[in-house]
């Protein structure tokens, strides 16, 4: 079958691998919906069929758009993200719908409907960015403008932000509340990728001896690292947002290591961060409290340690295979055991209902995203694009690790979202943008021309 291009349009490129993986995603999500519906109603039923159909339709639409656009971009990212988003949608459908309620006109939308709207919007952004972005010039040339914009966003939140749970994170724009730190993470990756690529050779080769065998890059090139440390700690101080600070600094260290190839620099960076964090934990009440909860939540089981303990119990109830979707989380006196389950503790809820088996699979999906990002970076033609791709994928991976480890009480809990699964408009939309950029940067250019077929001999044709 030959596909001919419509006039004025590029030649469509079939994406069989992506289509196959999307089919598996559809089957998995339908099984999940069936599991939830059957547990809930007591007879064979599919939960929220309209929502699932809309979501799968949106995935198919993005796939079709990529085929028609004719760019040869990555075929694994979209199904992986689709799987994570679908699991998030199932979780949102499973949780009580009045966790989040928003009135739009006369209609009142609950958790699952809002999550579906944001997911479809995120997929639409990912698809259009993947198709429309042809060059990364606009990102790399204006790196200082982007950095200034990021700092401006931060200041804006500080001045006009609303305080939630002791952290100033949200900015109200009409009916939608927005978390600028989500967008800030993308802006910082762009800035550091462009900056580090520009100075890569100097960072690696022009080294200054400090003491003994310890060498560091010359001071002027360490300045952005110092600024980054100041920024990360500044966020903690001003906004009391430990998660964002940890995320920014980890991703910066990863990028710094990719650019300079020096393990010593990374170790020094980690040491500085731990030092700064220790000072903060001593000085600031929020940080101090988080660490205290982490060390011993049982000292105040009904107060500050409550959520963490309930999350641990949820994981314990789940065991190896889980209780099944819809069978966990027995409401205690009409109350949810974990109040922030849809934003900060989705992994605990999934750990209870899908068990360790399910949680490992979900973490595996994040690993796939990181692996794909690093593969795209390895194939990139220049340093800026390589660092951009690696940084964008690592932002998603590191964020998932930080919140997953927080849920499991491996590190102090920080209030950031689990990418693609947590409820939250800004998180979903920005992560959609990240996936779109990764897809755009994975473009392998136009397909090589096919070898001309050897012409058949005249004699054989007649025979």
């Amino acid at each position, binding site marked *: 079958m030959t596909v001919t291009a419509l006039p004025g349009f590029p030649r469509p490129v079939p994406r069989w691998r992506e289509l196959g993986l999307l089919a598996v995603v559809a089957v*998995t999500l339908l099984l999940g919906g069936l*599991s939830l519906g*059957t*547990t809930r109603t007591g007879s064979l039923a599919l939960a929220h069929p309209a929502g699932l159909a809309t979501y799968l339709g949106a995935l198919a639409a993005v796939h079709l758009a990529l085929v028609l656009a004719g760019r040869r971009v990555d075929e694994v990212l979209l199904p992986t993200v689709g799987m994570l988003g679908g699991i998030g949608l199932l979780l949102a459908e499973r949780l009580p719908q009045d966790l989040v309620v928003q009135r739009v006109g006369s209609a009142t939308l609950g958790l699952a409907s809002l999550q579906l709207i944001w997911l479809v919007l995120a997929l639409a952004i990912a698809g259009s960015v993947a198709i429309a972005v042809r060059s990364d010039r606009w990102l790399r040339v204006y790196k200082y403008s982007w950095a200034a914009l990021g700092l401006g966003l931060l200041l804006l939140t500080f001045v006009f932000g609303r305080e939630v749970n002791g952290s100033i994170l949200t900015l109200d724009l009409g009916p939608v509340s927005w978390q600028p730190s989500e967008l800030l993470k993308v802006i910082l990756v762009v800035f550091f990728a462009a900056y580090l690529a520009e100075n890569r050779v100097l960072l690696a080769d022009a080294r200054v001896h400090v003491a003994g065998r310890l060498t560091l890059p010359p001071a002027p090139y360490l300045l952005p690292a110092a600024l980054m440390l100041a920024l990360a700690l500044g966020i903690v101080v001003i906004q009391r947002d430990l998660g964002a600070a940890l995320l920014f600094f980890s991703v910066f260290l990863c990028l710094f290591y990719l650019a300079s190839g020096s393990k010593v620099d990374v170790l020094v960076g980690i040491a500085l961060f731990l030092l700064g964090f220790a000072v903060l934990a001593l000085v600031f009440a929020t940080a101090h409290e988080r660490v205290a909860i982490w060390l011993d939540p049982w000292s105040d089981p009904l107060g500050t340690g409550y959520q963490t303990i309930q999350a641990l119990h949820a994981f314990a109830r789940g065991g190896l295979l889980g209780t099944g979707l819809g069978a966990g989380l027995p409401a205690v006196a009409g109350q949810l055991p974990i109040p922030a389950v849809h934003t900060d503790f989705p992994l605990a809820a999934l750990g209870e209902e899908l068990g360790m088996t399910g949680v490992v699979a979900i973490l595996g999906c994040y690993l796939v995203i990181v692996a794909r990002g690093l593969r795209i970076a390895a194939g990139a033609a220049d340093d800026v694009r390589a660092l951009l791709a690696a940084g964008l994928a690592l932002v998603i991976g590191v964020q998932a690790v930080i919140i997953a480890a927080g849920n499991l009480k491996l590190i102090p809990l920080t209030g950031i979202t689990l990418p693609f699964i947590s409820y939250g408009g800004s998180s979903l939309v920005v992560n959609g943008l990240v996936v779109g950029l990764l897809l755009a940067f994975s473009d392998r250019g136009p397909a090589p021309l096919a070898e001309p077929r050897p012409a058949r001999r005249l004699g054989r044709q007649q025979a």
Partner: protein
Amino acid sequence: MDPLTLTVWAIRLAFLAALYLFLALVARTLLRDIRAASRDPAGALGRLVVVGSANLPAVGSVFLLDAITTLGRDLGSGVVLDDAFASARHAMLTFRGRGWYVEDLGSTNGTLVNGDRVTRATPMGFGDELQIGATRLRLERGIA
């Protein structure tokens, strides 16, 4: 066990199995990609892409670079430039450990990196632009 419990168990296990089927398929794709990449012959240290030129080489041509590559009008150069403003032995690109360096070999009209004149061995990052006479060449990573 009543049939409903059995059905729910079957669906739950099928859901988890489908999750892992997805991961297995993705893992196979990733492995295939890596194998295909390692089979590719061109593991060059870098390449020069011509982005602007007076005569030859034509815009768009690509040179795979050896660890030491000379540029100039001389026919023995690694990259032969047919440019009136290029010297016979004009400049040299060397790969030293982690990155590329360019040095001017005493040319008449000089060598520019991103618009700045080269006076000594100057580091070049991937994506940087080298200008000799009217010829502009962009350094890119070798095909991975």
